[in-house]
């Protein structure tokens, strides 16, 4: 039986659907089409789907790992498996990874705002506004974060309807000839679509806060399904609207799609799209901040409030740093490698460790009796 936090702090299991889905969708959704097309071209949507399917396996592994953790999360599991020192070190590494995740979201989003809407706006001003909002939400606790997540799934979902406008220009022949690429090309696209699904690993931290968590796997898988169905809709709309040559020249294809939408009362709908992405990046950032706070709190003697502010100040300094395009590329690559290693390397490795330590325990128990 897996560990569960006290009842007053937990959320209903079905909310895991929204938590998991929303912790995956973020800033990568804006430009993933641009990143994946150099590989499998017009077939790249298949790679997005296959990567999405592989996340089901990752979720299965996470559930297996956490069932055997004494406090139900990765922080306690690290200490339990690897001892206090190595465990704390690994927790520190995980903290760094989470910091990278939130900084990447904020840096990319501030770049979108600076490029498309307010060229004069400094990154620190954008970071300040967002971080203060995040602090306000995270101070409310996990239940508030979940509530925000739920609302923030519903609001941007309304935007899916507006994809009808680009679909009026759809050229469905762009998808033909079907499956005209080689396996290495599909693999390239799949590796580039990993950032889309990063965020599922946050389950390793908030798992104890789900009521009846051992039985909630169903909702987690629905969340994953929701994510890749959404990505498929966006990818297919983009590929129908743009041909391959055009996607190469669009840095944020999802935003450029909205440039074709125009109403008599609202000529440029794309600004609406850009600011709607606040809804997309707020939940993952809040969950990450909350996770950072939890790691700091349980590994050191700091209080929740102090550790939250420490994390926020660190994030603020990193985000306010003036980045150029080359540095952004490095940050993006780092995040992609770190996420891929975590999802497809470290989590399976952890599952193997848990499996071995279980066997050892059973073997020891048998020998003792």
């Amino acid at each position: 039986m897996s560990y569960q936090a006290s009842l007053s702090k937990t959320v209903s299991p079905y909310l895991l659907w929204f938590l998991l889905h929303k912790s995956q969708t973020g800033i990568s959704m804006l430009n993933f089409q641009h990143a994946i097309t150099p590989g499998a071209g017009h077939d790249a949507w298949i790679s997005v789907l296959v990567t999405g399917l592989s996340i089901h396996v990752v979720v299965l592994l996470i559930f297996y790992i956490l069932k055997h953790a004494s406090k139900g999360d990765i922080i306690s599991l690290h200490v339990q498996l690897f001892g206090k020192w190595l465990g704390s070190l690994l927790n520190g590494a995980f903290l760094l990874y989470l910091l990278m995740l939130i900084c990447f979201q904020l840096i990319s989003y501030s770049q979108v705002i600076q490029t498309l809407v307010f060229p004069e706006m400094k990154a620190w001003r954008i970071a300040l506004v967002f971080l203060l909002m995040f602090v306000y939400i995270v101070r409310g606790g996990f239940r508030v974060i979940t509530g925000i997540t739920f609302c923030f799934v519903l609001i941007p979902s309304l935007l899916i309807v507006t994809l009808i406008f680009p679909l009026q220009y759809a050229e469905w022949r762009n998808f033909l000839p079907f499956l005209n690429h080689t396996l290495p090309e599909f693999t390239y696209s799949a590796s580039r679509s990993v950032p889309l699904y990063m965020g599922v690993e946050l389950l390793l931290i908030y798992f104890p806060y789900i009521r009846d968590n051992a039985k909630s796997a169903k909702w987690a898988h629905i969340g994953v399904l929701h994510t890749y169905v959404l990505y498929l809709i966006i990818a297919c709309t983009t590929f129908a609207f743009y041909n391959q040559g055009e996607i190469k020249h669009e840095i944020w294809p999802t935003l450029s799609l909205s440039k074709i939408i125009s109403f008599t009362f609202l000529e440029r709908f794309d600004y609406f799209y850009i600011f709607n992405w606040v809804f997309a990046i707020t939940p993952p950032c809040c969950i990450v901040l909350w996770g950072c706070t939890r790691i700091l709190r349980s590994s050191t003697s700091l209080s929740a409030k102090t550790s939250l502010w420490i994390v926020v100040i660190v994030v603020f300094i990193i985000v306010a740093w003036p980045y150029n395009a080359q540095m952004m590329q490095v940050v993006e690559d780092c995040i992609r490698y770190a996420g891929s290693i975590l999802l497809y390397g470290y989590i399976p490795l952890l599952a193997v460790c848990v499996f071995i330590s279980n066997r050892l325990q059973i073997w020891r128990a048998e020998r003792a009796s």
Partner: protein
Amino acid sequence: MIKVTLLRLVIILFSLLLLAGCGNESIVNRIRILSAVGFDREGELCKGTVAYPNYIQRKGSLAILKGQGKEPKLIMDQFERESPRKVKYNKVNSIVFSQAIAREGIYTAVSTIIRDPDLGNTLLLAVSSCSAEKLIESLDHQELENLPFNIVKQNMANGGVPPSNLHLFLHDYYSEGKDPSMPSLSLNEQRQIQIHGYALFKKDRLRIVLNTNEMTLFGLLQGKKVRGELAFNYKEHQYVLSLLAGRSSSKTQMRPAAFRYDINVDGNIRNLEGNRMSMDPSEAGALSSCIEGQLKAQLLALLKKIQANDMDSLGIGERFRSEDRNWKASVFYKKVYPTLQFNVNVNVHLKNSGAGE
């Protein structure tokens, strides 16, 4: 307790006041919002002429600004230097190139436009048969409604102009198997802007301009929307077929390479002598088969004309690409396309000839 709340209130109010003062103020009727831009070539330099609605002195009718520079951005800078008010180009909806620029290639200008997030994707790109400067100048003192964008938009919806905007231009430009096209504008004797044809490009260079009749036929072959008026002769009389609806489908054939169009159109004939059909219904068949013959000949001539100019404005290469797994643009346009066989089947259904006999 009350003190703390009061303090908070004061802080909030203060920051509100501060924030409100921080904005980059642009009040719509106190700035110059450019609407239509024309580009001409003048030696080394590029000449830009723009029309903007003047809300203060002219109650919204259009006024003109002119500038010169090497790049669209530098011309903008010159407008700024000439103007007592802020100049914004976010609402530009028509961009007109002179034929000289269009023949040299418009990609350098277009690439500046697409990289600028201030411009939308629905804006109109057009070629001007006279100088773009004259064309835009004719808008002086006219209403905002008379912009080329609105003229073309109206004709795309109701007349025989094929759909065209910045997005479609880029889609065709970056496509491996299609060449872009855009409307061509001119000035008539009353100095009114009119659509006088349809410009076909090879990549970003203007090659030929179709006349209005060919433009309607071009739209018919594209198959997206069938509208417009076509003139015919039957028994030494002139008839005008008004296209109401229609469907055009196309089919590729690999070996030997051929391309077939099947065109079904519904139309009616309402001009003089059109009542021949209602007087003698037996003649309707002969009339429609005569129209079919003439339409087929015209369509084939148009296809041959485009082919002879080494262009693929209808996206035939794109059709072959989607069906042939080993398609290569270079091979197709060198070996297959120049000798591609076209077949056209036309079915005309004459619906009526008006309400009188």
